[in-house]
C-alpha cells in the first residue's frame, strides 16, 4: 500500500513535464516585455491558439490510437468554405443552392466528418498507409477549397459562422471557452471512459486490443470522424477570428500540431501520451510565438530561434519524462 503512491505521483507528473517550461517562458516573457504578463495579452495568446489547439486535440487522439492524420490542416479551410458556398448566393461566390444560413455550422461539421470518414475508409478498409493516405488527402481536400472558389477568398459570410470565433462570453473569447471545454471532455474521455481507454489499447497493441474484444475498426472510424469534426470546428473558430476564408487557411499548421502533441508527450508510435500533455504542448508553442512577436525578432532569423526552442522543449520533455521518444 505504500509503494504505489510515489509511482502514481510520478505518472501524474509525466503529463506535466512541460509545466516548468511554461513557467520559465512566463518569467522570461515578463522580463522581456512588460505587456507580456497582462491579462489582455495572455487572453490573446489563448484566443490565437484556440483553433490550432482543437487540431492538436484531434491529432493527439489519432496518434494515441496509433494512426496519423495530416489532412486535418486542409479540413480547417475546406469544411467551412464548402458549408459557406452551400448557403451563400452565387454572387458571393456560392453554389447558389440557397440553403438557409443557419445551417452553415452543421454543414461545416458534416463536411469535416465526411472527410474523416473517407480517410478512415481508405486506411481501415484498404489497409493503406495512414501517412500517405492523409498526405494525398491533404492535397485533395485543399484542392476542394481551391477548385470551387477558384482561389478567391470568401468574404461574404453568413453571420452565424462568424459568431463563435469572435464573440466574448463572460469577458473571454468564446473560442477559448469552447477549446477549454473540449479539452476537459478529452481529458476525461481518454482518462475515464472505456472507449477512450480503448484508444490506448489499439495504439499500444492492435492485436491484443482485438483479442480483448475491442471493436477496433469501429473505434478507429470514430476517431477519424471526430478528428474531421474537430478540424471543421477549428475552421469555424478561425473563420470568425479572421472574418473571411482565404485559400491559405490552415495551410502549414499540421507541422505545428505535431510538434505541440509530441512535445506534450504524445508518442508518434501510438499508445502513449495524454490530452493534458498535448494541451501543455500547445501552450508552449503559443507562448513562444507570442514572445517572439513581442520582442520583434528579425523575420529572417525567426525560424532558427523558433526551431531551436522546439528542440529545447523536446529535450526538456525527454529529460523530465525520462523515456526515449518515438
Amino acid at each position, binding site marked *: 500500500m505504500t509503494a504505489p503512491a510515489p509511482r502514481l505521483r510520478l505518472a501524474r507528473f509525466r503529463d506535466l513535464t512541460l509545466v516548468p517550461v511554461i513557467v520559465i517562458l512566463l518569467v522570461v516573457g515578463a522580463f522581456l516585455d512588460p505587456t507580456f504578463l*497582462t491579462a489582455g*495579452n495572455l487572453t*490573446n495568446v489563448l484566443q490565437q491558439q484556440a483553433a490550432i489547439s482543437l487540431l492538436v486535440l484531434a491529432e493527439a487522439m489519432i496518434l494515441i490510437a496509433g494512426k496519423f492524420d495530416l489532412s486535418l490542416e486542409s479540413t480547417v479551410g475546406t469544411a467551412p468554405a464548402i458549408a459557406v458556398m452551400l448557403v451563400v448566393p452565387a454572387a458571393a461566390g456560392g453554389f447558389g443552392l440557397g440553403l438557409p444560413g443557419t445551417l452553415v455550422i452543421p454543414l461545416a461539421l458534416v463536411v469535416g466528418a465526411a472527410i474523416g470518414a473517407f480517410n478512415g475508409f481508405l486506411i481501415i478498409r484498404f489497409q493503406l498507409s495512414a501517412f500517405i493516405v492523409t498526405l494525398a488527402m491533404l492535397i485533395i481536400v485543399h484542392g476542394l477549397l481551391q477548385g470551387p472558389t477558384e482561389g*478567391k*477568398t470568401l468574404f461574404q459570410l453568413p453571420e452565424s459562422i462568424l459568431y463563435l470565433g469572435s464573440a466574448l462570453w463572460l469577458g473571454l473569447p468564446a473560442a477559448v471557452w469552447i477549446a477549454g471545454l473540449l479539452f476537459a471532455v478529452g481529458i476525461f474521455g481518454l482518462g475515464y471512459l472505456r472507449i477512450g481507454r480503448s484508444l490506448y489499447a489499439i495504439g499500444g497493441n492492435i492485436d491484443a486490443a482485438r483479442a480483448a474484444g475491442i471493436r477496433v475498426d469501429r473505434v478507429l472510424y470514430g476517431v477519424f470522424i471526430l478528428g474531421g469534426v474537430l478540424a471543421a470546428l477549428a475552421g469555424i473558430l478561425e473563420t470568425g477570428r479572421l*472574418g473571411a476564408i*482565404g485559400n*491559405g487557411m490552415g495551410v*502549414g499548421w499540421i507541422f505545428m500540431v505535431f510538434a505541440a502533441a509530441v512535445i506534450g508527450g504524445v508518442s508518434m508510435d501510438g499508445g502513449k501520451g495524454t490530452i493534458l500533455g498535448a494541451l501543455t504542448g500547445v501552450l508552449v508553442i503559443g507562448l513562444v510565438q507570442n514572445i517572439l512577436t513581442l520582442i520583434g525578432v528579425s*523575420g529572417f532569423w525567426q525560424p532558427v530561434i523558433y526551431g531551436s526552442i522546439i528542440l529545447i522543449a523536446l529535450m526538456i520533455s525527454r529529460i523530465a519524462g525520462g523515456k526515449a521518444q518515438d
Partner: protein
Amino acid sequence: GSGSTTEGASGGGGKVGIDHPRADSDFWNSYIKYVPQMASELKVDLMPATNSQNDVSKLVNNVQALVGQGAKAIVMAPQDTGAVANTLQQLENKKIPVVSVDTRPDKGKVYMVVRADNRAYGTKACEFLGEKLGGKGKVVQLQGALSSINGRDRSEAFLECMKTKFPDITVFSEPTEWEGSKAASMLQTRLEQNPDIKGIYMHAGGVHLAPTLQVLKQKGLLVQPDDPKHIFVVSNDGIPQEYDAIRKGEIDATMSQPADLYAKYALFYAKAALEGKTFQPGPTDHDSTIIQLPNGLEDQLPAPLVTKDNVDDKNLWGNQVS
C-alpha cells in the same frame, strides 16, 4: 481551344505558352481570369496555361513542357527571380522571347517585363500614412513573405521612406508569410503592446484585409476616419473588397495593382515579339513608361493609389469584376 484558324488570324507566327505562378491568391486569380479574355481580344494563340504553384522548380518543368509542345513565346511570372536564370538562357538559345509579369528576373534575357513598380507601392503607402499621422507615431507593416521579391521591395521601400521622410515614426514589421492567421495574431499582439499604434500598411489585401478588420473590430478600433481612435490603414492589391472597405471608411487607401493590365500587356508584348516588333525606352500610349534593364526592357504600368476620392473610378480593375 487553339486551332490553325486562330493561328492564321493572329498573323504572327506561333503559339504562346503561359505559366501562372499560383492559384490561391485573389490577385493572381483575377489575373488568371483576365488572361483568356484578353487573349481572345488580342487574338493571341494561347496554349493551355500551366501553374507552377509558387515553386520555381515546377516553373522550370512547366516551361520545358510548353516549349516541347511548340510554344514560340513564353509568358511567366517567376516569383523567385534568380532561379530562372538558366531557363531564360535556354529560351534565349532557342530564340524564344519571354515576357515576365510582375517580377523582374535578375539574370537572363527578357523581351519585356510587365510590372508595376513594387517599390513605389511601399513609398506611396509610407507617404500616405506619414501625412495622415503628421509625421509622428507608430505604424505596423504586415509584410508578405520575405523570400518574395515583391514583398521585399514593398518592405524595403516603405522602411527607407519612413526613415528619410518621417524619422519620428516608429515602424513594426511583421513577417506574415502571406498568411491571414499569422497577420491576425501578430497585429493583435502588437496592438496589445502598443495601444497607440495609428497606422497599418498591409502588403496584400487579399490575405490581410479581413483579419485586420476583424482584429480592429474586436478592439473597438474600427471607427470612421474622423474619430480620434481611428487607425489609418493602407492596403495593397486593389481587390473589390478593399474598395468596399474604403467606401465604408474602414480602411483609407489601397494600391491598385492592375491585374487586368498585367494580363493584357503580357499577351500584347508576347504577340508583338512573335511579330518581330521592337520597343524603345520612353513613355507609351497607355500611361506608362518603358525603362531599360541590363537584360531587357520593363514596361512600368501605372498603379494608382485609391482613396475615398477615386474609389468609384470605373477604370479601376477592381470595379470591373463582380
